[in-house]
């Protein structure tokens, strides 16, 4: 039942991402709100349905994007796996989220480069890092704190005082 709250939140996230954040670009990168939301959700110590959220988020993104489905799922599943590992190592939720978002942005760059390489579109890794990933990472980190504050309240409301998974 609790996983159901993911539907409206992720639906709204996908809409905001496509209609708003994808238009607000710095150089050629932009913030990935879906990654931020999934990372904050998955790194929270009390959250139980991180994988379900990730699959749903990836599905919604895949519906909107022309990027190959398999790569989209990989783009979001790997950061979730990292988040689930990190939360048992580090206690700070925000720090974990920031680490996962940073690593996730880098991973997204690798996936993007892999795709471009596969379709034989010219793209140098340096260009991707400088024009897409670095500005994207900056915008992701800027967007993390406000998203964290909002999501933290939702998580506390959804999972009130439960034991760690």
């Amino acid at each position: 039942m609790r996983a159901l709250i993911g539907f409206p939140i992720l639906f709204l996230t996908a809409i905001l991402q496509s209609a708003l954040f994808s238009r607000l670009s710095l150089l050629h990168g932009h913030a990935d709100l879906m990654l931020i939301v999934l990372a904050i959700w998955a790194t929270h110590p009390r959250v139980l349905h991180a994988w379900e959220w990730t699959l749903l988020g990836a599905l919604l993104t895949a519906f909107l994007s022309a990027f190959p489905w398999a790569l989209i799922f990989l783009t979001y599943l790997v950061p979730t796996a990292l988040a689930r590992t990190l939360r048992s190592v580090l206690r700070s939720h925000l720090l974990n989220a920031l680490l996962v978002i940073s690593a996730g942005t880098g991973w997204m760059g690798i996936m993007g480069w892999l795709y471009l390489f596969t379709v034989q579109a010219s793209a140098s890794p340096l260009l991707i890092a400088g024009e897409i990933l670095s500005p994207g990472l900056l915008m992701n980190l800027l967007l993390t704190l406000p998203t964290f504050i909002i999501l933290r309240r939702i998580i506390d409301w959804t999972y009130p005082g439960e034991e760690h998974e």
Partner: protein
Amino acid sequence: MKRFFARTLQTTFLFLIFSSILALAFGGYLRPISSGITRAWVSLQAWVSTRYLGIQQFLTAPQDFAALRQRNAELEAQISQLQLQIIELQQQIADREILAALVRYSRANPTYTYKAAQVIGRDPSPFMHYILINAGSNDGLRRGMPVVTHQGLVGRVDAVIDSAARVQLITDPTSSVNVRLQNSRTEAILVGSTTADLWLDMIPQQAKVIPGDLVVTSGLGGVYPPNIPAGQVLDVQKQEAALFQQASVQPAVDFNQLSIVLVILNFTPVDIAPLIPTVTP
């Protein structure tokens, strides 16, 4: 008798003093004194009046503050509403201008049937240059249909659902468009890139390409209709050892400001899939 005489003398004396003062005043001899007295009087009255007004203001101020605050709040609300109206009107004007330009374009190119659609989103991935539009198969859109604006070529429909469609922009790294340089009639291929820059590729070495040359679709391959402007040549890169020349192209369409596009409904792209040889075991 003595008392009567003293009183008469006193009255006479006073009358004389008064008369002499009047005479002096009418003669203008008392002006410095009168002006000095008047100045002192005015200063004193002004001081008293100022203090009185200050005290009155102090006593009535709380009422005025409340009334002013209320009035201020009302005016601020009114300003906010007016600003919203201004934004809406500006948006309407901008939309109307775009629509008027699109109508002019469709009238100037009556060969094709167009469907106007609003851009409602962009691809979430920064590596993909696609837009989402609010027209779909219910509006007659099919996969492969070309998309234009009054400025020029935008791209083609990549995926369709009943009420929306995804359009691949010509700036997408996987996009390639057969084009022709309008002046020299040279054929080339316009390709997109990750950074949304457009490149003209496969230009023959002997072709004369000048910055500013207009790039239009050639119609070869049957993917896009011919003679739709795609951009202008910015810079030519010619290397003696290379097989072809390359050139960077300024897109005709401002892809950052895309809000309304036209889908060409009566152009069916040629499906060349059966012509592509397949390896059979």
